[in-house]
């Protein structure tokens, strides 16, 4: 399966967080590197959506849809900072 990037889950993350998140900066809890969510490695059907660090490939986020509910695991992130919307 092809790796995509965080742009591909802009809609899903908006569903989960209620705001535009591809410009949010995530910090990897494993290697400490930080970058926009748009630049993360994304696997869409892993199963579930898996987001990995562009620098060290550690898992940052997992989102699994169960019916109408999204189960979100953010354990791989040390920080996730979205710019304040105006």
């Amino acid at each position, binding site marked *: 399966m*092809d*790796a995509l*990037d965080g*742009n*591909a889950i*802009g809609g899903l993350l908006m569903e989960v967080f209620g705001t*535009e998140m591809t410009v949010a900066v995530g910090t990897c809890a494993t290697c400490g590197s930080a970058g*926009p*969510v748009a630049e993360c490695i994304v696997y869409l059907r892993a199963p579930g959506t898996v987001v990995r660090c562009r620098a060290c490939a550690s898992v940052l986020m997992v989102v699994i849809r169960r019916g109408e509910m999204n189960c979100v695991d953010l354990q791989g992130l040390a920080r996730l900072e979205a710019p304040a919307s*105006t």
Partner: protein
Amino acid sequence: MAGTAIRGRLTWQVASVESVRQETASVRTIELQLPDWAGHRAGQHVDVRLTAEDGYSAERSYSIASAPGEPVAITVERLDDGEVSPYLTDELRVGDEIEVRGPIGGYFVWDSHDMPSQLLLVAGGSGIVPFRSILRHRERSGSMVAVRLLYSARSLPDVIYRAELDQHQSGVSVNYTLTREQPPGWHGYARRVDEALLAEVAWPARAEALAFACGPTPFVETVAAGLVALGYRPGLVKTERFGATGGS
């Protein structure tokens, strides 16, 4: 970026097909009429959802091909083993309805008031779609930013929007590379995009140009690594990958 932030929930809405236009043998542009559309930025995408009679549904993301202020259009390439694209390219007719949500994305976007001295756009295959929105936005907004476009396609008949791209906009230089097949007398490039080709076409790193690369994942990886090797700051290279599908 006052006034451009997107607020509120993202909801699915039913869009009706206003027009369809065949771009190449396997690519179609679909103009949509959306009941509730607050406008979009150049480079954003929409999610499209198709639902079968048995309730099975499939979602895909498609870049918006039209400029901010124009009716929303998407350009779709047919993937033979695709779940969604063959329906959109082969079956969908004017007046049909599909579910759409958007606009989505705030990273791979260009606003005419972003004022880098220069803009570099590198497209592989249908990676050209968001750049049509950016180029139209540039034209419509009267932006004077100088643009270099490098567009990699398999062959000339695979070039999407060729007539539009060939209508020379002042300040926009369009460079094609045809990787598989070239017509007789072809004067453009005829090789895969790599660091050497980028060195010929891209603005020099000292220009601090803003670069966008869009296409199949391996293509985008090559372009991003090549530009950084040429001295581009990683923060000025924006990327969007859509998998290993489509020709470049």
